[in-house]
């Protein structure tokens, strides 16, 4: 953990339990989640320590953790937790919370990917790999990294040059935004 001064926020756990509908307080820190997690090696906290941070009300540590962004939502942790905590759901709730509160994402690349993906389906209604790959490459200032793969995909007709469109998802985004407040 980064800071020496730890400021616990006692409401944090309660709010998170309500939002996620999961009882984080029943976590017994057995470590089965972290032991099963395919991405654990490159996480700062991993699911077990993240649950602990929530239990202790360590809001900054929890919301600033790269675990929220690296999680692949594979749900292995949730399916193996002996206390039947849906760990992936808790992580998802934390991520929504971090976005809402404007916490700087601990992994900027993944956050950018999600933003671009959503912008694209809002505009087109359907995903368009070539556009997404191009935009991602430009914005990360590394437009060439995936060129070989995209070339191979184009050769096999795996990605069309012209994006497919569907009307109707822009309004759905609008509606969700309005209803979400």
């Amino acid at each position: 953990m980064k800071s020496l001064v730890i400021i616990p926020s006692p409401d944090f756990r309660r709010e998170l339990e309500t939002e996620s509908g999961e009882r984080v307080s029943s976590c017994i820190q057995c470590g089965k989640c972290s032991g099963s997690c395919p991405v654990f090696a490159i996480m700062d906290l991993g699911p077990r320590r993240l649950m602990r941070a929530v239990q202790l009300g360590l809001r900054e540590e929890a919301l600033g953790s790269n675990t929220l962004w690296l999680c692949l939502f594979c749900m292995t942790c949730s399916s193996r937790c002996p206390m039947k905590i849906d760990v992936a759901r808790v992580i998802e709730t934390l991520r929504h919370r971090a976005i809402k509160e404007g916490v700087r994402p601990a992994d900027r690349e993944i956050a950018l990917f999600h933003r671009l993906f959503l912008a694209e389906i809002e505009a087109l209604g359907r995903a368009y790999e070539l556009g997404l790959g191009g935009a991602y490459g430009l914005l990360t200032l590394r437009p060439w990294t995936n060129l070989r793969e995209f070339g191979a995909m184009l050769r096999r007709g795996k990605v069309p040059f012209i994006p497919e469109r569907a009307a109707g998802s822009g309004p759905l985004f609008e509606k969700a935004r309005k209803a979400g407040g």
Partner: protein
Amino acid sequence: MAKAFAYYPGCSLHATAREYDVSTRAVFSALGMDVKEIEGWVCCGASSAHSTDHLLALVLPAHELQAASEMERPVLVPCAMCYSRLKLTLLELERPGKKEEVGKALGKPLGKMPAVLHPMEALREEEIPVKRPLGGLKVACYYGCLLARPQGVVPGEDLENPQGMDRIMARLGAQPVPWPFKNECCGASMFLAKKDLLLRLSRRIVFQAQEAGAEALVVGCPMCHFNLDLAQRGTEHPLPVLYLTQAVGLALGLPPSDLMLKRHFISPLPVLKGKGIWPG
């Protein structure tokens, strides 16, 4: 009466995974089932919507569910990612107040929600008239995360050792191998943001399948397919990756144009020819 489905292809099946789309339609029509695409469907939001916005993650799939319920048909969803989003939305809508909240956001109340099926579930129950048995081809069936988890989403499948695809493959004359990585994660949609991680995770899976003696992998997800196929480009002795519906189509004796087996990075032709089951 013949079985009828509302078909939700999702974005991948119209682009990177066209062979999965074509082979699914061909197999279901060969088995006498009616598959009709939902008109004007939109992207389910995949991992990005639920990564960032709870309500949006429900509104996008609910729009599709609503359209299918108007067609009065269960939804057939070949993409395991879309399948999982739709199924999890169904579960979420059962939580108190959710159906009203999402219906309000959509601007029309949600009626009775349709059942959602993956081709594995639909084919598990189906009689398959095998014309071209798969010659004992050793296959490792890979379910990934989303055809096995979470509990209760894919009915009748064991979380740690799912069997649905293995049973179908055995009925086609293939030989499914037991192996330990059936439900390990392949790296999902991290291609752009974390390619090295994705390659590492996918190669582990291929390695385990090879260790178990498999000659091919069988999958039911365009994301898994893309990752496992891509991760083997330029490697020695790669394992071809088949879609479940391509394997079923082969056994049904469908022509090559219905299977599109030449679109993969790793060609399955040498293995299939070696077994005498290449239709070309």
